[in-house]
């Protein structure tokens, strides 16, 4: 069971996570990650997220397919938003369901590490004073996190 969405609208992370186990008795564990827009100590007014339509969905599919080859997953949901997001807003979620907790944890963490470095999204920071701070720079630590799973740089 795979659900992948790239959308401007908000999502109900709770309902998405619950859907993975609803009416099933083989799911032993779900791990749900939600990433939020932070205000960076009050300096950030919003994030503008640009994406590559078509490729964003396709790349997330590939990342999920990769996770499915590594762990026995019963279901995976991945949703990434684009457009202007205010501090406190949800940006991204992944949820993984498995028979066992170690697989669910590992899959959710790998999915996030891969999404950060492989999915075609770019963030721009809008300052509290209305000016554009410019494009958020990719972090070495994100590439390092992805490399833990054997990911080459795309």
């Amino acid at each position: 069971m795979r659900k992948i969405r790239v959308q401007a609208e908000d999502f109900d992370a709770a309902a998405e996570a619950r859907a993975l186990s609803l009416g099933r008795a083989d799911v032993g564990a779900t791990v749900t990650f939600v990433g939020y827009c932070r205000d960076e100590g009050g300096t950030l007014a919003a994030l503008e997220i640009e994406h590559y339509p078509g490729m964003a969905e396709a790349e997330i599919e590939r990342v999920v397919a990769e996770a499915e080859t590594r762990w026995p997953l019963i279901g995976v949901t991945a949703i990434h938003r684009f457009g202007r997001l205010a501090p406190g807003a949800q940006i991204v979620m992944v949820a993984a369901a498995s028979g066992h907790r170690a697989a669910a944890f590992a899959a959710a963490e790998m999915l996030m590490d891969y999404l950060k470095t492989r999915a075609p999204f770019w963030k721009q920071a809008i300052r509290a004073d209305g000016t554009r701070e410019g494009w958020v720079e990719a972090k070495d630590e994100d590439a390092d996190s992805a490399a833990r799973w054997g990911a080459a740089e795309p």
Partner: protein
Amino acid sequence: MKAVYFAWVRERIGKSEEEISPPAEVVTVGDLIAWLAGRGEGYAYAFEKASVIRAAIDRVHVKHHAHIADGREIAFFPPMTGG
């Protein structure tokens, strides 16, 4: 083929997509970046540090040594910052 640009690559070039017809000696993604960089000031600025530029052919990530071959859509963009 169609070239598409994202984030600051798009901003520097000043357009989000265009049809391009590179000459036959442009074989790899790296060749195409060098060829595009010679097309004007915005292009030169966008591709000034070619090594940081990421590329995708028909919506799949590719390295600079990849052949552009029969690609219909080639994309150039900075390292991704989603998630």
